[in-house]
């Protein structure tokens, strides 16, 4: 099996498995007052402190959640509600149309059910949002509840100049949320230095467990809760702490951040070989997103493990199926719950036409990727594309 879908999820690290197994063998609710509860709380709080350190945050800025989707929902809805509560003019959300659906659908829900006005930001062909474009969209900022622009795009891997965007937002007093689910462990992420107000991250993209995430939330950011109850997480998020998952999330994050420089370099060189090999086998294949060697002030301009390509005349769906039948696992990027392929909203947002958006595949490499994985893909990609082309785009 050739697993080239690390952006969907990546194998759990052995250290994570060991730490979680140990924790799962213990009893204790971190909210309980007795010895077992204290032990559980100690484990959770140590994890919070280490996570904060790894991500340039203060421990009180780390809110544990049930994953990336919950963190995105909490940030978008919570900031919107709290900011509008403080000033009823703030009904506008300024957001990139290339966001993950956890952000997009939260924004659209607020627009449909709760009076939000949405300003969709124009996107560069690379998928990036220019700071001056954000500034123009924000205006004087007085009617804006929040802005949200992802740190790194999950489909095409484009990394944002997030510090520059945060600076622009803060000039007019608007908080910036960023979904960094794909960024943490792949590019440098320093919450404090970036200046952003809220950061979404999750465990299973970097070798931790599923169902465990974090919202990094500045101490001065007002955020209305989605989940009410015990108030465990700064009264912004309730629910018994999943200590084993939190421990696993922390171990994964700490390791991913510590090993990032060497791993990112190794994965980027594998990725570069993959893209070069695919383009050599299929000369009209098109790389989507930022150039492979794109760079920003703080690091790479493209996720090191991301290769997103369009194969004109072939349908992504058919390519995926043919590769799957040959033991190669990748993604078309965007699929709804029922598994119906839609043209990638991210590519459409970058100005690509629907056909290019439908004919794309995402290959994403991660910590277990090897040269063999790239070779396995390069062995079959040309005949697979040829076969998919003969099946056409399935449309008249």
């Amino acid at each position: 099996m050739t697993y080239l879908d690390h952006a969907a999820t990546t194998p759990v690290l052995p250290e994570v498995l060991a730490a979680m197994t140990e924790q799962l063998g213990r009893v204790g609710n971190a909210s309980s007052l007795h010895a077992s509860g204290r032990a559980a709380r100690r484990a959770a709080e140590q994890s919070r402190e280490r996570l904060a350190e790894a991500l340039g945050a203060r421990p009180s800025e780390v809110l544990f959640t049930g994953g990336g989707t919950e963190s995105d929902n909490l940030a978008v809805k919570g900031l919107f509600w709290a900011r509008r509560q403080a000033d009823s003019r703030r009904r506008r959300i300024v957001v990139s149309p290339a966001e993950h659906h956890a952000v997009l659908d939260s924004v659209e829900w607020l627009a449909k059910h709760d009076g939000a006005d949405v300003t969709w930001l124009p996107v560069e062909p690379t998928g990036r949002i220019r700071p001056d474009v954000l500034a123009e969209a924000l205006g004087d900022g007085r009617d804006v509840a929040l802005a949200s622009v992802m740190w790194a795009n999950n489909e095409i891997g484009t990394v944002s100049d997030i510090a520059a965007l945060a600076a622009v937002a803060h000039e007019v007093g608007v908080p910036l949320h960023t979904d960094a689910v794909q960024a943490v462990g792949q590019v440098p992420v320093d919450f404090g230095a970036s200046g952003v107000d809220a950061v979404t991250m999750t465990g299973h993209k970097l070798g931790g467990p599923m169902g465990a995430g974090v919202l990094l939330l500045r101490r001065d950011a007002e955020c209305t809760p989605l989940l009410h109850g015990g108030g465990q997480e700064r009264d912004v998020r309730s629910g018994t702490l999943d200590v084993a998952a939190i421990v696993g999330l922390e171990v994964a994050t700490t390791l991913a951040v510590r090993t990032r420089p060497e791993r990112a370099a190794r994965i980027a060189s594998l990725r570069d070989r993959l893209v070069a090999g695919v383009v050599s086998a299929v000369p009209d294949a098109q790389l989507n997103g930022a150039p492979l060697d794109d760079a920003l002030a703080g690091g790479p301009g493209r996720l090191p493990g991301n290769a997103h390509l369009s194969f004109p005349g072939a349908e992504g769906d058919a390519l995926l199926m043919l590769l799957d039948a040959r033991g190669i696992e990748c993604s078309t990027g965007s699929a709804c719950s029922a598994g119906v392929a839609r043209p990638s909203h991210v590519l459409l947002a970058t100005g690509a036409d629907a056909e290019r958006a439908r004919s794309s595949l995402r290959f994403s490499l991660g910590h277990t990727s090897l040269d063999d994985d790239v070779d396995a893909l390069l062995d079959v990609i040309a005949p697979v594309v040829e076969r998919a082309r003969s099946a056409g785009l399935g449309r008249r």
Partner: protein
Amino acid sequence: MRLLAAMSGGVDSAVAAALAVDAGHDVTGVHLALSPDRQTLRSGARGCCSVEDAHDARRVADELGIPFYVWDLAERFAEDVVEDFVAEYAAGRTPNPCLRCNEKIKFSAVLDRARALGFDAVVTGHHARLADGQLRRSVDAGKDQSYVLGVLRADQLASAMFPLGSITKDRVREIAAERGFAVAAKPDSHDICFIPDGDTRGFLARKLGSRPGPLVDAATGTTVGEHDGTYGFTVGQRRGLGVSAGDQRPRYVLGIEPVSRTVTIGTADLAGIGEVRTAVPSWTGGQPALPFRAEVQLRAHGAPVPCEVTSAGDGGLRILLDDEQRGVAAGQSAVLYEPDPDEGDRVLGQAAVRTVREREETVRH
């Protein structure tokens, strides 16, 4: 063989896929998304199309350990089946959308794509026997679906597989239960899949709007009432005519004339049909030499009628029925069978009914 199993989420296609796997084939499951705005949960007795149905199909595929994908054919389905269905009714005819779907979607769009992707054949859960290129009725006469497959040509049948034709529906449910499929007791689908509430007349009214016209008594030629659209009627229909005759005898729809929007009604003695003329036929194998004797089935669950098939002279067929039939509507398919009590009646071909006549040669529309 490399097979593509079309899996609706119902019990038949689930068992068909399972039997194909058992037979040692390399099977991939595919669920066809046919509606542009699919409901999350199934409503009514529908066997496909909701997200829940896709989930049911995926569950079976996962249990079988076969790959599973959803193919979005909503655009093709809307053009080739739904629009055709509405246009046929607007033209005063009575279409069979399941037959059209088999002709244009399952054994055309899906089959073409499957072949191009390297599959040898498409497997479905239809109840019909197919061996050596010969399509025959299912052993389960009550569940036989050879009628809606009668439109397939030899090249399409050559790349089709119907594993359920030699077992009964009861046995299909038993197999599903033995394997622990959650769909073992899922109800059969009855309604037209794209009309979730089963209200065909309401669906057509929304698509076609009000198109009022007269209801005319065939015996007297007098107008006995008004209707909102000819699409609300099908030949042979008895209920819902909205007229009460003084003689207390039931009235039937005898004919529909779309230009003047006239719906002709009459008593049972006028409803009999002795001759059917058709559009150009399609054949499951070679075309038999005309004329020939056969049996014809004129609607999905109609009884076969012995007949003589001759040429109509215009490329279509002239089918002379041994016994008069009621409820034969233009647009329906006349599927021709060669009776065979041992191996199962063999499907020869089909043709769309264009006009129907009494034996006296008085043409009705």
